[in-house]
């Protein structure tokens, strides 16, 4: 398979995670203290590097069929989680993810927290906030890089996609010095959910022994089909919502 779809998918997925991590780091740095914030970020990056170094080669050494079965299952489950949330957000059953309000929540909490020095860190709150944010969002990046890279036997391409996303988001974040609220994050999550689910289904079925019609070209059909099914789900939930609203309006008219 061409490395470009792999790089692009990993880039978009990791960009979403990087935006969320940036929001937390900015909230900690601007409200509290940059030194402790950077310390927390650095420690989280070291932990992520250790996890990647430990898990990556172990996973990559598995036979390709077993690898694709396990990774396919994980990616399909993971991707369906993203799709589910994206559909619920698009139909109003769940609030849209908003970096501005996420930033405000973090800032409010950071402003009220007490200042405490601990283990050589001058502001423990800023350190832990930044550490947790980078570690949790970073774990998703590591997961995506390892699963996509190992399944395609091209960890290098996956790392390029992830690194490019992190660099672009970090540079943009430094330039604007504010959370990236203008990025269409909800639509990006939609796209990532579609890609994770499609790749997971493709690799999982291959791992279970299937030979896809058209081999890798089947992905060119699978991705739009997953997108269409997702769009149909949105239309279904909206029409159900509209159908439920009509009798309510009628009863209001009868009642009046």
């Amino acid at each position, binding site marked *: 398979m061409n490395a470009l779809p792999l790089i692009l998918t990993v880039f978009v997925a990791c960009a979403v995670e990087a935006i969320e991590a940036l929001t937390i780091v900015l909230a900690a740095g601007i409200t509290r203290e940059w030194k402790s914030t950077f310390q927390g970020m650095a420690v989280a990056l070291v932990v992520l590097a250790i996890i990647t170094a430990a898990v990556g080669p172990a996973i990559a050494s598995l036979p390709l069929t077993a690898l694709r079965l396990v990774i396919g299952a994980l990616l399909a489950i993971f991707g369906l989680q993203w799709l589910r949330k994206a*559909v*619920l957000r698009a139909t109003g059953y769940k609030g849209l993810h908003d970096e501005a309000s996420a930033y405000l929540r973090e800032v409010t909490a950071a402003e009220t927290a007490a200042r405490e020095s601990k283990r050589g860190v001058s502001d423990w709150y800023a350190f832990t906030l930044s550490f947790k944010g980078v570690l949790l969002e970073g774990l*998703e990046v590591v*997961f995506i890089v390892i699963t996509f890279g190992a399944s395609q036997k091209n960890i290098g391409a996956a790392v390029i996609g992830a690194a490019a996303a992190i660099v672009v988001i970090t540079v943009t974040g430094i330039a604007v010095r504010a959370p990236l609220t203008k990025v269409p994050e909800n639509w990006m999550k939609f796209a990532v959910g579609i890609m994770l689910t499609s790749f997971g289904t493709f690799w999982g079925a291959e791992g279970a*022994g*299937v*030979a896809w019609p058209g081999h890798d070209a089947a992905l060119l059909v699978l991705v739009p089909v997953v997108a269409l099914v997702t769009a149909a789900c949105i239309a279904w*939930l909206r029409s159900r919502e509209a159908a439920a609203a009509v009798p309510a309006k009628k009863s209001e008219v009868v009642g009046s």
Partner: protein
Amino acid sequence: MRRLKSFGAFWYDFIIGDDWQVAVLVVAGLALTAILTHVARVNAWWALPAFVFAALVWSLHRATANKR
């Protein structure tokens, strides 16, 4: 013990997420695909996508039923 529990809870939430039935349906789809392919000798490429779409629809139905 508490740390072990929260470690397990973190990974459960990370991988399985809000609806465990999605994971069950995906695993069932993979198992059926493997059985059809290796035992019945059918190239069942359609089985897993069918389970994946069913999982999405079922999960959305469960999440939205009785809401509003």
